[in-house]
């Protein structure tokens, strides 16, 4: 049983108690301490900037050509905060409860409460940085509503909230670079974690331009490297999103949690061909006015507009009358898959459902719909060449967000002392299903407000520890291992591309460890992944040299995805219940609803790596609910 080190006291006082008692470091000593932050998305940039403001020396790394490009930039909808500006009954407690319930009671009370509590300061911080959140005409901040809640607590900047928060954090980071407190390393990919005497003390990176391997030592290492949803190949993620940093830390001893909890976003553009690389997300806000349906008849080949009203199945309105088209993401995605599997899917690959605005246009007028969603309709037309004012959009669920990640305690520290994980890279706050507009929040809160308290608390106890430089044997050994692995990849001379393996793995996981899973499908997937790994080892083809080489980068990431994919299956296999995004076919009611099992599975999995050919070892963190009562999550 592992201990999350949750502070004592009432739920509402825990974070204050922690901060009151956390140890501090004298400003004169801070400049003697180096902290590595990997990743420059919202969590990484905000953490690096804030630590630098406090006086630490920060080394910041990203694989992109600029810190501003991390995939936080793509978040559309908004960021939640319990400001209660609408006077509609919102509060820190209510936001906490909505998040716990939305996560299907598989997250830690204390973490979630802290997330809601810190949401207030985040909005203040972002506004002060110049983030242009939407405003009412009187000049005050505007809010909107999002799936799974009954209050308006979402702050937004058109459909580009992630981009604007990202630019705010990026600028804060650039300010610290100009002040000399952050040393920035772009086009650097972390390829290993260096552990000395059980503590995280540095990283090995590859310079993606020159190909050189470089070593960096520090007093603590922060991984803010995002989620691993790209494991499915087709997803809403950026092409470069990967698991390599957290996976290599996992292989050095950091436990992984909730690995199979992956959110599929219900409103994405469907796959229409084998060469497709990306499933673009269409904002969830469309579901406020769009109605989702499929033809009642299997394999209906008629033009969609010709299908009469009584031959359409508005399956969300039918199954979940209370929430209808605004049912939570996991439920909406699964309902779409159920209809598609039943043979009622539409589109060239029969893998989509309709999102229909005809009723809304009739009722509100085209102008109103254009004002609300004009940019999304334009984007749809750009990608598909179809005018969605005239015919329904085709949408489909796509892999989107990983609730799982590195296990962290209340201080966001992994099982390796001195190694912290922030944002989507950790598992902490969303349980088995994330609510919309909570991911921007979590990454920012982790980086601006939590890690800057907990990292100094850790460092204060390690002030006297020996100064380690990159000459230490642990760095030499790690460098050699990385070099060996890269050389092996570079000398591959098979006939299949890294993308081929990635696509095969993605398809396999989507079918067997995706929106729904079963014991049989998961056991089968594990066997198939092992065979795929063997094929990868023998049949991979890479051309080019050690300098700029995107094929080499991809191959390294795919090799980690293959190992991660296997762990996802083990994780899904051991959890013999259905909760949130994890739907085990064996555990459902006769009408297809999830059956959670709180008696046996009210815990978070925490997996320990045991070696290449060994099964991973399961540890557990029991979830203790002191404040909320576990309840069945119903949206009917």
């Amino acid at each position: 049983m592992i201990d999350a080190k949750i502070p004592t006291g009432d739920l509402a006082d825990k974070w204050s108690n922690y901060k009151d008692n956390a140890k501090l470091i004298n400003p004169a000593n801070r400049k003697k301490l180096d902290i590595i932050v990997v990743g420059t998305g919202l969590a990484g940039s905000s953490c690096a900037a804030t630590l630098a403001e406090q006086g630490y020396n920060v080394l910041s790394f990203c694989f992109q050509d600029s810190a501003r490009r991390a995939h936080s930039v793509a978040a559309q909808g908004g960021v939640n905060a319990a400001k209660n500006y609408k006077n509609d009954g919102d509060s820190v407690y209510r936001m906490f409860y909505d998040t716990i319930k939305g996560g299907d009671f598989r997250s830690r009370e204390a973490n979630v409460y802290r997330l809601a509590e810190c949401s207030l300061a985040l909005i203040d911080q972002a506004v002060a940085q110049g983030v242009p959140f939407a405003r009412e005409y009187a000049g005050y901040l505007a809010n909107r509503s999002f799936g799974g809640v009954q209050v308006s607590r979402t702050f937004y900047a058109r459909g580009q909230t992630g981009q604007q928060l990202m630019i705010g954090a990026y600028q804060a980071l650039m300010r610290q670079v100009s002040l000399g407190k952050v040393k920035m390393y772009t086009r650097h990919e972390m390829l290993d974690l260096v552990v000395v005497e059980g503590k995280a003390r540095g990283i090995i990176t590859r310079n993606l331009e020159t190909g050189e391997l470089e070593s960096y030592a520090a007093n603590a290492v922060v991984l803010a490297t995002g989620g691993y949803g790209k494991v499915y190949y087709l997803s809403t993620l950026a092409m470069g999103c990967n698991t390599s940093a957290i996976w290599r830390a996992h292989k050095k001893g950091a436990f992984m949690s909730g690995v199979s909890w992956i959110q599929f976003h219900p409103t994405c553009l469907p796959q229409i061909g084998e060469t497709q690389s990306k499933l673009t997300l269409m904002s969830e806000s469309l579901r406020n006015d769009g109605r989702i349906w499929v033809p009642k008849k299997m394999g209906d080949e008629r033009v969609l507009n010709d299908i009469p009203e009584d031959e359409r199945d508005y399956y969300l309105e039918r199954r979940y009358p209370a929430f209808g088209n605004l049912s939570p993401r996991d439920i909406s995605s699964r309902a779409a898959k159920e209809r598609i599997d039943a043979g009622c899917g539409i589109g060239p690959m029969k893998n989509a459902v309709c999102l229909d605005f005809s009723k809304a246009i009739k009722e509100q007028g085209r102008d109103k719909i254009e004002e609300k969603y004009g940019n999304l309709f334009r984007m749809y037309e750009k990608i598909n060449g179809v005018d969605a004012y005239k015919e329904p959009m085709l949408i489909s669920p796509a892999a989107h967000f990983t609730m799982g990640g590195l296990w962290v305690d209340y201080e966001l520290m992994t099982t390796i002392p001195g190694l912290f994980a922030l944002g989507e890279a950790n598992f902490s706050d969303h349980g088995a299903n994330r609510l919309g507009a909570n991911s921007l929040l979590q990454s920012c809160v982790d980086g601006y407000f939590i890690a800057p308290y907990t990292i100094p608390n850790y460092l204060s106890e390690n002030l006297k520890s020996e100064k380690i430089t990159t000459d230490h044997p642990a760095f030499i050994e790690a460098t050699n291992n990385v070099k060996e692995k890269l050389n092996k990849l570079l000398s591959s001379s098979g006939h299949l591309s890294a993308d081929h393996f990635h696509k095969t793995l993605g398809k396999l996981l989507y079918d067997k460890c995706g929106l729904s899973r079963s014991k049989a499908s998961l056991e089968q997937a594990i066997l198939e992944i092992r065979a795929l790994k063997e094929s990868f080892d023998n049949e991979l083809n890479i051309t080019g040299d050690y300098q700029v080489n995107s094929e080499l980068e991809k191959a390294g990431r795919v090799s980690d995805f293959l190992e991660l994919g296997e762990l996802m299956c083990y994780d899904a296999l051991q959890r013999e219940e259905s909760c949130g995004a994890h739907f085990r076919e064996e555990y459902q009611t006769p009408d297809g609803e999830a059956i959670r099992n709180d008696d046996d599975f009210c815990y978070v999995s925490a997996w320990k790596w045991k070696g290449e050919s060994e099964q991973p070892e399961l540890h557990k963190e029991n979830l203790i609910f002191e404040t909320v009562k576990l309840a069945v999550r119903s949206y009917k």
Partner: protein
Amino acid sequence: MKLYLKIWRQEHRKVKGNMVSYEVDGISVHMSFLEMLDLLNERLLRQGERVIEFDHDCREGICGTCGMMINGRAHGPLSGTTTCQLHMRSFKDGQTVYIEPFRGAAFPILRDLKIDRSAFDHIIQAGGYISVSTGQAPESNSIPIAHEVTEAAFDAAACIGCGACVAVCKNSSAALFTSAKISHLALLPQGKIESAERVIQMVNQMDKEGFGHCSNTEACEVECPQQISVLHIARMNYQYNKALILIDRNAKS
């Protein structure tokens, strides 16, 4: 459909590159432009050749990573569109397509179509921020900002930093990029206080990086995927001159 491609190939920063011809068939009109290049790369790989290196990441038009000159136009023939959002239905079967990197003295080529845009980061480092540290912020509604002011600031803040403005400019000027950031921050009450120092430092940095001056051809606005207005350049020039006078006067008094 089938295309005849002529693509810039270059080994690294220090050597010269040249255009190389490729024929690609089996292209579907539904493919994105980058997926068409993926297809070509998959074939090059099979033939044992080094793939064409190009930058790309989100493939949904917001990260600003991708960008190439396509038949002489930054991000290709469509307006308000990044390279990743361009689809093959914008091309004709049998067409010849020239693909080159975004060029500019301040944008060295790393390999093929990959370029180094860190000069943009340096311009932001010179003052493209509001100097507020975590913890200093006042209650967010204590600074009311008129709806239209926020919207105008947003229009400028929407820049994705792709570099199309530089690539299309005959002077390789970064005026649109720099002025968009200056406008974004100067329009907001939070950003006004530092605006004089900011504009001077950022403009000076832009010059130092080797970008040229603006001669008002307005090609940048035409090619900008976010359709950022050249009026920001006018505002930047006005603010720059105003700041020079103010700072000069402050120094004397």
